[in-house]
């Protein structure tokens, strides 16, 4: 069965709208009748990715392919890249500013949450070029 495709542009300027794409995607998945557990995992993973792109990369794009048995989320930005992926994957490690932390972000849980709530997380990143994350959420 062919995938349903959804594309979102993530605005890097506007913190107040961060998470909007994840909210829209959640609604779509609910309309499509996906189990609530899969919707929850997809929402968490995509939200963390969206927030990361706003915090670190001045926005980017999210492309979601929905299959009957899986949801594939591809997040791509042209931000600074991740110099040390292993370090970034550690819970509690964050390069966020004090201002970001004051907003409730920057707990160093973004990438670990993405890994925890998905079947697979693939990170392609190059310093100074950008980052591409591919996540698969099983249904």
């Amino acid at each position, binding site marked *: 069965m062919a995938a349903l495709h959804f594309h979102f542009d993530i605005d890097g300027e506007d913190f107040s709208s961060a998470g909007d794409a994840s909210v829209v995607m959640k609604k779509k998945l609910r309309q499509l009748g996906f189990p609530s557990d899969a919707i*929850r995992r997809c*929402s968490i993973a995509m939200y963390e990715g969206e927030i990361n792109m706003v915090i670190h990369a001045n926005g980017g794009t999210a492309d979601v392919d929905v299959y009957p048995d899986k949801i594939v989320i591809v997040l791509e930005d042209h931000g600074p890249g991740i110099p040390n992926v292993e370090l970034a994957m550690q819970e509690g490690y964050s390069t966020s500013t004090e201002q970001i932390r004051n907003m409730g972000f920057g707990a160093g849980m973004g990438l670990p*949450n993405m890994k925890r709530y998905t079947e697979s997380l693939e990170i392609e990143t190059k310093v100074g070029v950008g980052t591409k994350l591919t996540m698969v959420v099983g249904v």
Partner: protein
Amino acid sequence: MTVEMLAKQLSLEPVCEAEPEREVTGGYVGDLLSWVMGRAQSGDAWITIMSNTNVVAVATLTDTALIILAEDVHPDPGVAELAEKKGINLYRSPESAFTLSAKVAALL
């Protein structure tokens, strides 16, 4: 217990009563949004001192029944309007997160 009943019992001040008849099934306390995202459950009363617009997105995604802003925190400008738009129950209280948690736990 519904959101409306809980709000009455705790003397919460409504900021946005979008869905007062919603059932409350549990509670969660936290201010780190990633932590809340990964752990709060659908139907929870989420108690926090975080007052920016992002709490509305987190409440939407985690499907919590209501947000309670503790410690007399006021929502930032635009938060009430956004909660209204997204259909999120948002209340505030002068009491501490600890006191509110104890009261929610005793009521459920």
